[in-house]
């Protein structure tokens, strides 16, 4: 590979990054304390932690970009063999891009959306080398080709919005390695990418590593880092709590945080098994930082479990919900659904092409596919938010599409929905209580029937294990996991038979994701819910589903029993997806 390390300015074998007792504070708020690590050339160190654990701030301190008002202290802070402590902003600028490159997540926003990609990649060359415009262009072309972007010449004239997610991420990496820096910091480089693309990006990082670049990889997902990291450092509340070689740390985690993160990885975990472990440390640091926002981590203490048990008992009393014996009944059925969209340029695109499936009571049907495969359109068709061009949806044996909305409304309570963007699905003026009250009373908050509503709201809040103290908050002031819980509580308000979950956890950290998945699982068991579970994440779908449908380009290419699909995929596309799923090297020691 032409992007490999050439002879760097630093002594061979010396660490490209050396950090000793790094402490970063914003005013009185210390977010990183006493962090020490080395990144060796040709090796990859992964900093893993939950949101707010301080890993990003740590990484940015290595670029002198910890942020306005940050006070950074360290016994040693060296990049490419020389200390960067106390560098002036001017001196920092000379080193950024040259000695250290940064790759952020989601290149759609991490590349300037208004500039051609080629210019972005050429920036470092422009800033740090005397190369002329033509020479820069040639180098950019080389770089783009090296990171595996086809048609480099054409791509460099396009803007990030015109590229696919994978292409963007490659371009971003190309920009970071333009000057061949000895150290590359990759902050969540694969989050929000489809699995196959994720695999490709990881592969690219791998090849850079092989070429001699030292990589500091930041992620919340142990499964992802396990693919490229040689060493892993687990961070929590601003400290490194455990560190070690990848294989060792994954197979024999010692710190509870590490174990919790490992347990949260859904891939390969059997259906029904709990993913989330209780949070071992209530971090005063993190609490202080999050202020009044509250945290998911603090959400599953025993008291919550107690109330959850109480709630489910009451729920069980509901006869309508007790549907175990009717497991074979089809509650939701799609027959030959098709939907075509017109693109802005006037051409047509078949988003959903002749999709059929059946959801049985009390079971989960997982729909998996990459972005653009038609999953979300399918969900909207099922929820009758979009009219199908062909085919129909039947709910509880009755037609749900092809009838006027007024008629459909009587059926709506039987189907609920949980969305990826929970925040957007709430009326911003409503508090949590108002949201649930509205859902419980059917939009008539002052109707006579609403007398029982407060009790029901309390019951729902308990069912999703939300503290009652959050009821008066607005969703904006909640964390992602809490929002998703509110969203689930709302969906349950009308006691639905079917819950459509469209990417319910893809915006969440792995550990929070684990909690939400556990919750859904539990609710399904207790309430006999039928779930239509849509996700791009095979691991999640595998963990949650009884039946699976794999979608590609609007079609279901393979469907069947979850176990058989995942163990013996028939369709090449399914196999391709499965291969791309980041798995832990060996089955880690799961806590019982």
């Amino acid at each position, binding site marked *: 590979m032409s992007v490999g390390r050439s002879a760097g300015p630093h002594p061979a074998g010396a660490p490209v990054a050396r950090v000793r007792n790094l402490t970063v504070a914003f005013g009185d708020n210390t977010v990183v304390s006493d962090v020490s690590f080395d990144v060796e050339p040709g090796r990859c160190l992964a900093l893993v932690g939950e949101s707010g654990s301080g890993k990003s701030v740590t990484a940015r301190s290595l*670029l002198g*970009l910890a942020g306005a008002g940050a006070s950074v202290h360290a016994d040693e802070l060296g990049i490419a063999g020389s200390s960067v402590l106390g560098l002036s902003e001017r001196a920092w*600028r*000379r*080193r*950024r*891009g*040259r000695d*250290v*490159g*940064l790759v*952020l*997540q*989601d290149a759609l*926003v*991490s*590349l*300037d*959306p*208004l*500039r051609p990609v080629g210019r*972005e990649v050429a*920036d*470092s060359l422009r*800033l*740090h080398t005397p190369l002329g415009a033509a020479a820069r262009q040639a180098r950019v072309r080389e770089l783009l080709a090296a990171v595996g972007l086809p048609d480099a010449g054409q791509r460099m004239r396009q*803007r990030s*919005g015109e590229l696919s997610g994978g292409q963007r991420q490659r371009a*971003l990496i190309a*920009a*970071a390695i*333009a000057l061949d820096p000895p150290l590359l*910091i990759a902050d969540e480089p694969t989050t929000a990418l489809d699995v196959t693309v994720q695999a490709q990006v990881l592969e690219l990082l791998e090849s850079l590593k092989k070429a001699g670049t030292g990589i500091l990889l930041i992620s919340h997902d142990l499964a992802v880092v396990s693919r490229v990291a040689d060493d892993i450092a687990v961070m929590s509340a601003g400290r490194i709590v455990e560190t070690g070689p990848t294989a060792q740390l994954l197979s024999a985690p010692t710190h509870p945080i590490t174990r919790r993160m490992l347990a949260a990885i859904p891939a390969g975990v059997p259906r029904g098994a709990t993913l989330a472990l209780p949070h071992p440390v209530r971090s005063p640091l993190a609490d202080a930082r999050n202020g009044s926002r509250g945290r998911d981590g603090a959400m599953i203490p025993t008291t919550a479990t107690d109330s959850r048990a109480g709630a489910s008992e009451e729920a069980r009393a509901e006869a309508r919900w007790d549907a175990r014996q009717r497991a074979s009944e089809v509650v939701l059925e799609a027959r030959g659904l098709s939907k075509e969209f017109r693109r*802005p*340029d*006037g051409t047509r695109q078949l988003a959903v092409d002749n999709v059929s499936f059946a959801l049985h009571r009390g079971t989960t049907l997982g729909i998996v596919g990459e972005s653009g495969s038609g999953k979300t359109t399918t969900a909207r068709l099922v929820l009758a938010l979009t009219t199908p061009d062909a085919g129909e949806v039947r709910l509880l044996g009755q037609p749900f599409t092809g009838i006027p909305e007024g008629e459909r409304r009587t059926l709506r309570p039987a189907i609920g929905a949980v969305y990826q963007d929970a925040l957007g699905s709430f009326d911003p003026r409503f508090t949590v209580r108002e949201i649930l009250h509205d859902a419980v009373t059917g939009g008539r908050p002052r109707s006579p029937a609403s007398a029982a509503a407060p009790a029901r709201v309390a019951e729902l809040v308990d069912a999703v294990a939300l503290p009652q103290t959050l009821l008066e908050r607005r969703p904006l002031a909640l964390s992602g996991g809490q929002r998703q819980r509110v969203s689930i509580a709302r969906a349950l308000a009308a006691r639905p038979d079917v819950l459509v979950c469209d990417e319910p956890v893809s915006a969440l950290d792995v550990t929070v994701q684990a909690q939400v998945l556990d919750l859904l699982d539990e609710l399904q068991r207790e309430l006999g819910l039928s779930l239509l579970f849509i996700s791009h994440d095979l691991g999640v779908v595998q963990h949650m589903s009884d039946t699976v449908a794999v979608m590609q380009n609007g079609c279901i290419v393979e469907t069947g029993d979850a176990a058989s699909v995942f163990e013996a995929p028939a369709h090449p596309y399914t196999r391709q997806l499965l291969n791309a799923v980041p798995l832990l090297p060996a089955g880690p020691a799961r806590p019982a």
Partner: protein
Amino acid sequence: MRTRTSSTPAIVGSPARRDRVRRVLRHPVLVHSAGGVFVLWAVATLTFFAVRLIPGDPAQAVLGGPGSQASPEALAAVRAEYGFDQPLFVQYLRELGRLATGDLGRSYALNMDVAPLLLAQLGGTLTLALLSLAVAWLLALALATWSTQGGRAARAFGSGLEITAAALPHFWLATALIIVFSTGLGLLPPISVPGPVGLILPVLTLAVPLAGFLGQIMRESFEAALESPFVLSARARGEGELGIRFVHVLRHAALPAVNLSGWAFGSLISGAVVVETIFARPGLGRTLLNAVTVRDVPVVIGVVLIVALAYIVMTLATDLAGAALDPRGKRA
């Protein structure tokens, strides 16, 4: 000639050509032009009927108002000449016909054709408005660039300056500028004299409040852009603060302000009425104000139409500029 079968390339190509035609038809310039013609027609129609509501006899107005002692014969002659004796609808059609050929009619008060009169005034007002727009842009940008670089105090100061500037009435500002720069310091002429020196105070008067408005909008997007990940990416590449601002943030900050420039142009025309009066600058605004006070209907219609036309062109220009800055296309 042999009939071509459906498989011949020419026919296969025809949907593509249709697509091309469709694309051309949807070309922003064409769509805007069609819309522009509609707007002009509507503006003309609206104004035509609106001015019929103006109290007073138009024939009297032609003859110099009620003070002119016009004879009944003269009034009748004028009514016939101008078609005031015709049914309203006929007058309307005639008017449209005239306007379509670029004939804006004849000023009642100034004894000359409206089109050449306004054409002569148009340049001055356009120069004033466009220069003011440019200066407002520069001021707003400079302030945003400078004040977002400093701390909270600088930001608050910048923001306060913008809000205050936006609240300044043109006529007050003009007065203050005259007192300071002409009467006080004797640096600049208090009235518009030919040449660039005479433009400074009028342009400042129009530009400062507008800069306040644009600045508020720019600051918001400036600050948002400064916090966006792509700026972090650029910093990580070693980009300096000026580079960050001029290479990356500026474009983003400019976008909403560019989109507002059509509106801004309209408000500048409004401001020109006041500014041209105070600085004794020939132009559409002053002509309009005079025409309104003496009820010179053809001039009023003419100014309205020309301003509408300028506004349409300006909107088109800002849309195109916006599209050039942000090729992502408009999100609905």
